[in-house]
Structure formats: C-alpha cells, structure tokens
C-alpha cells in the first residue's frame, strides 16, 4: 500500500513541477509535437493536398526539330500538371549556359530528326540537361519527364491521359500494383510520432533527473524512505501521461487539420506510441543512473536520435542495410517499434498479428526498466551525494 501511495506521490509531484514550469510545458507539449508536424507538412504537404515537386521548376525547352511532333511534345509537357514553368528557348548552348544560374534548372533538347524517327518506328531521343547541384531535383525531373514521353505519340494532337497503371510502367509490361498506397504524409506521420516520443521522453526522464540532481531536489527525494521502484514508477506514470497528450496532439493535428488517414484505430496507435515512449523512458532511466549532467543528456539525445534515424528504419528500410549496420538495426528495439507503427498505420495490419515486434518491445521495456532499477538501487547513495 505504501508502495502505491509513494508512487502516486512521486507522479503527482512530477506533475506539479511540470505545471509550474512554463518552458517545460511549451517544449514538451507544444514545440516538439507542433514543430515536427509542421515540418512534415512543409516538407511533403498535407495528406489531402497534392502538389507536383517539378511543377514550379523553370525548365527550358529547345526545339531543334521544329516539326509537328516536337511542337506536340512541348504542348503535352506545358499543359501537364507537372511542368508549369516550361520556357521556350531557341538556342541550345545559351540555354545550357544558364544552368547553374538559378534562372533555369533543366534544359530539354529535342534533336533534329525527332519526328522522322517516330514516323519510321525508330526510337526517338530527347536530351535532358540538368543542374544536378540541387539535391534530388535532377532525378525527379528525369523520372517525371520519362512518364510523359514513354508513350508519346507524335501523330496525336492530344495525348491520351495515362492511367496510374500506365504511369507506373516504363518497361512495356504493365505493373498491376496491389500494395496499399501509402501517401508521403502518412509515412511522415509514422516518423514524426516515433521521433517526437523518443525526443521528448529521453529528455524528460534523463534530463529531468539530471536537472533535479543539479538543483539538489533529487538528493532530497532519494534520502526519503521511498523505495527506488516507487520513484521510477512514479516518474514513469507522469511521463506516460505526457506521452499520451503528445500522441493526441500529433494525431489530432495530422488527422483533423492535415487530413491524415491512418489505417488503424486510435487505440492501436496510442498503444504503440506509448510502447516507444516506455522503451525510451527505460533507456533514459539507465542513462540517468550514471550521474550525467543536463547538457550531456541533451548531447547524448542528439546522437541517439541521429543514430536511430540512420539505423532503425526511420530513414532507410532495414532490409537495405548491410553488414554491421543491419546487425545494429536488429539489436535496436526502436527498429521493431517503428516497424509495428508503419505496419499498423500504413498497412492496417492488426496489432496482435505483429507478435515478434510486440515481444521484442515488451522484452526491451522489461530489460531496460530492470537494468535501471538495478543501477538506481545500487548507486542510490552516489546519486544522492
């Protein structure tokens, strides 16, 4: 009974402390969730808005063929949703010389004999010069242009609108894709949910304890007759409450403002989000037991998030990692957490089917909290000094 009341007392104390700190409330509940969600929107647009990444890029079109077919190619591109800023240019060399000046970013050159090749059934060619110093832009322009020209028919005034099936096929054999369509925003949402929890929870636990140690209040807490378990559990309960609020803030903003549509229910997302939070909290407690300072915690957090971004499937699919990086990915519990988050939110797979992910997550939480308890219990005196 004392254990329960002590735990509740610690949780309540943490909440009171949190409520009194305006900057903690701002950072934990507003800045982190809103900052990351807005950044996702700024980067990929909302879930219901669609935009073409190539639409606003100024591209020069040089027609050296000057035939009906080349004119129709220009019309096809200029009237498409993907190339709003096609600029007709008459001199190939001067157009290419403009690349790198930020006035134009690509030049499409239709060579002489373009129409002849099409009429004679030969493969016609066009040349695309790009300013490849812009990250990701050249490849995007190339792939979008290929979609438009792959079935271009110089005999038709208006090109038939390609079905998504035709758009996705560049080989002449069509690909009927049955996989669930995952919008960029929904994919981003899974990253944001995971990163927000990892970011905030690690700082709140490890940083919170370090701050209390620096201000001397943690020493006072440790010299009370309270059990170590009560202290850890109390702080955990407090952070679970914050994590729940954060999950709802990110989800609410994503769903109701930006139109995200997760393929699973809110309960599943909340459970997974809290599991990620609990793994991070376990890690935070373990780190805090080593008497690190607040600034060191923040720096560790940076390296942790950077590491997780690279090796837990947040950025690169784990399947593509090789050698030691793949081994690291499979050791990290966050890899399984993120996998479960993606498979539920994006594919709609029921949580209970993800047994491996859940087992690893629950196991990691037990191990990390067990380790933290052990470390805290054995270094209680040192922590209080």
């Amino acid at each position: 009974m004392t254990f329960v009341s002590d735990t509740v007392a610690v949780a309540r104390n943490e909440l009171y402390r949190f409520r009194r700190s305006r900057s903690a409330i701002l950072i934990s509940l507003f800045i982190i969730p809103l900052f990351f969600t807005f950044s996702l929107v700024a980067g990929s647009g909302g879930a219901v808005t669609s935009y073409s990444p190539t639409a606003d890029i100024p591209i020069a079109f040089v027609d050296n063929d000057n035939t009906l077919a080349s004119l129709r190619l220009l019309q096809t591109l200029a009237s498409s949703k993907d190339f709003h800023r096609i600029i007709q240019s008459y001199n190939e060399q001067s157009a290419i010389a403009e690349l790198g000046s930020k006035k134009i970013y690509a030049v499409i050159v239709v060579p002489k004999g373009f129409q002849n090749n099409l009429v004679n059934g030969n493969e016609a060619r066009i040349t695309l010069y790009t300013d490849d110093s812009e990250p990701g832009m050249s490849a995007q322009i190339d792939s979008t242009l290929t979609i438009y020209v792959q079935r271009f028919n110089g005999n038709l005034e208006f090109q038939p609108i390609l079905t998504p099936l035709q758009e996705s096929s560049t080989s002449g054999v069509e690909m009927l894709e049955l996989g669930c369509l995952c919008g960029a925003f929904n994919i981003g949402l899974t990253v944001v949910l995971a990163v927000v929890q990892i970011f905030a929870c690690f700082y709140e636990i490890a940083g919170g304890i370090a701050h209390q140690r620096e201000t001397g209040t943690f020493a006072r807490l440790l010299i009370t007759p309270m059990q170590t378990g009560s202290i850890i559990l109390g702080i955990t309960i407090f952070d679970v409450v914050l994590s729940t609020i954060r999950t709802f803030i990110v989800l609410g903003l994503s769903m109701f403002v930006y139109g995200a549509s997760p393929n699973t229910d809110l309960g599943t997302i909340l459970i997974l989000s809290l599991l990620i939070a609990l793994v991070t909290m376990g890690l935070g407690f373990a780190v805090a037991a080593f008497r690190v300072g607040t600034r060191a915690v923040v720096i560790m957090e940076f390296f942790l998030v950077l590491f997780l971004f690279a090796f837990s499937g947040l950025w690169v699919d784990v399947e593509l990692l090789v050698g030691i990086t793949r081994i690291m990915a499979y050791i990290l519990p966050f890899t399984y957490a993120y996998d479960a988050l993606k498979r539920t939110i994006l594919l709609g797979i029921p949580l209970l089917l993800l047994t491996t992910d859940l087992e690893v997550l629950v196991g990691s939480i037990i191990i990390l909290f067990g380790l933290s308890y052990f470390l805290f219990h054995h270094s209680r005196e040192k922590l209080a000094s």
Partner: protein
Amino acid sequence: MTWFLRQVTAVTVKELKQLRRDPVSLLLTILFPIMLISIFIALNAVFSAPSYNIAVGVVDLDNTPASKALMDRLATSSVVHVTEIYQDEEQAFAAVNNGQVVGSIIIPKGFGNALAQGQAFIITDTDNSKITSSGLILGELQAQSSDLLLKNTESGNQLGVKNLQVEVIWRPISGRPVTTGDPYLPGLLGMIILLGAFDDIVNAICRERERGTFPRLILTPTSLLAIYTGKMAATVVLTIIRTAVMLVILRATGMIIRGSIPLVFLTTALIATFTLSTGLVISSRIRSSATLTFLEIAMTFPLLYLAGVWSAPLMLDPTGKFISLSLPWTYGNDALRRIMFLGLGLNSPSVSGDLFILLASTLILLPVALVLSKRTM
C-alpha cells in the same frame, strides 16, 4: 585601435581556452561533424550499393517459357532475392502481410501470349510501408521485363517489342555520376557549421551567465563591443577549424571539390555569423543553456529538409518552399553547393546573390541581437 584589438584577442583566446577545458562541448565540437558525416556516408553506401537482397515471393500461374524466363531473371537478380515460390496468389499476399517477404510477384495466366503481343502485365503486391525497398522491387521488375521484351526468344523469334516511344538521355551539367550522394554533402557541411555556431553561442553567453562569469567579464575594463567581437571571433576561428576538418573528410570520402576553397571558408564564416546572431536573439529569451541546446537539436532535423540540405527548396510544398526561401541558411547551403559541386565563383550571380542575402540578413540581425543580448545581462 590596438587596445581594442588586444581586448578582442584576449576574449577570443579566453573562449577557446574555455572550450578546451569543457570536455562535453569539445566532444560536440569535434565528434559531432565526424559522426554526422559518418552516418551520411553509411547511408549513402546503402543507396549506391551494387546489390541488395530484398526478399520477394513469386507465383507463376502461366508456366510458359516466357514466364520461366522471367522467373530465371528474378532468381539471378542482384536486387531481389526470391525466397519462396508460392502456388497461388493468396499465399503470396499472406506472406507480404506477415512480413515474410517485402513483395510478391504474380505472373498471371496468359502472360506468355500477351507478351508476344506487347500487352502483358504482371501483378505485384509490395509492402509499401518499406517505401525504398518496394520501389526497388518494382524498378527491378520493370528492368527485367523490359529486357525480356527485347531479348526473349520464344519459338526461336525475338519479340523485339519496343519499350519506349521516346528515350530521355540525361546529362547532368556537373558531369558527375548521377548516383553519388555528393550534392548533399555541401548542405551537410552547412548544417554542421550552423549547429557548431549555435553551440558556440550557447557556450559563450548562456553557460557564462549560468556560471556567473559574465558579470565579472563586464566589470573588467574590456569594452562590451570587444567582448562580443571576441566571442564572435572565437566562433569564426572554430568555424574555420570545423570547415577544414570537414573538407578533409569530404576529400577523403572521394568528393571532388571544384570551387575556390577560400570562398568555401568565407561562406561557412557567413553562415556561422548569421547563426550567431540568431543564437544571440534566442538566448535573450531562453536563458537555460540545456534548453537552448535541446532546441538546437530539435531544429536540426526539420532544417535538414527546410534549409535545402536533403531537398531542393523549389521541390517542396508551397508552405515549405516559402519557409525554405525565407531562411538565410538555405542561401548559404545553396552557395556551398554551387561553389563545391559546380565550381562556381563570386563572378557567378547565383553565388554572389546567395552570399549577399546571407550577409544582408546578418547585418540586419546582428545589431538587433546585440541590443537584445545587452538588455538581458
């Protein structure tokens, strides 16, 4: 003037000595660029790897020489690894759902006949939560089926079906291979300078305030202008060191730097000075060094997108584009790319324009930052 310079030098030396004595800050200053670039190189190696082993399952419902030829091609592919051959679609779909394979490829009945007429299709079911892997599977399937169309000899006759009406020949102006991650590296250098400079200002102002040494410094006969100039000079010195370290690392990883090296240093120094001004403004509101460092780290990840490191600003959503083009760091990163990647110099309007925007933003923000910072002493 000499007296002022002596004061500035004294403050600069003090700042550098303080950094040397603080192991955590030193770790962040030195280890951070190395760690960031190492992770990027590891990721870049993933994207430019010659082969992958992405698990796929295949169902051949056609059982013709054409479908067998496609199966053989997939079996010897360097991108996908056929782990299972299923009897029907249901098994294949279930395998994707269970996570046993990343994708399933179903060759439908009649594939061989349709292929001969150039009207074939293949059914795929990929785990699109693994967006890069599923994209690679589809790309490999496209490539193999395209090759099959051209080379397949059914009944001794080449099908010779043409893939595309018009082929696009892509020529990047830098003349560099299109698959390298080099266009991202100058932006990464910009981010490292940004974070380093922000951390310098956290050290120079907030930590000094927390230690209580700032009032003592002000009580000395050193002028306030000399104190701030000294602190900024220390950041510029550290920026030069960071840039030099990064250039050595980039060179060691195989990046060919084409432009003028002094211009690279000038650009990073401008990025650092602007960041310093921003840091001064923020530190006038947020007093705790830990909170400031936390904010710095939190803004790193969005800035990778919004400051033109991972994605060109013009390719962002309209809101993102607006934010990106409003950030002076975007112009700094852009200038670095144009100098280091394309080899452009100050005579190029794009580089001089970028540097002008960065300089103008600094000149506007710096006096405001100094006034605000002075008020909070």
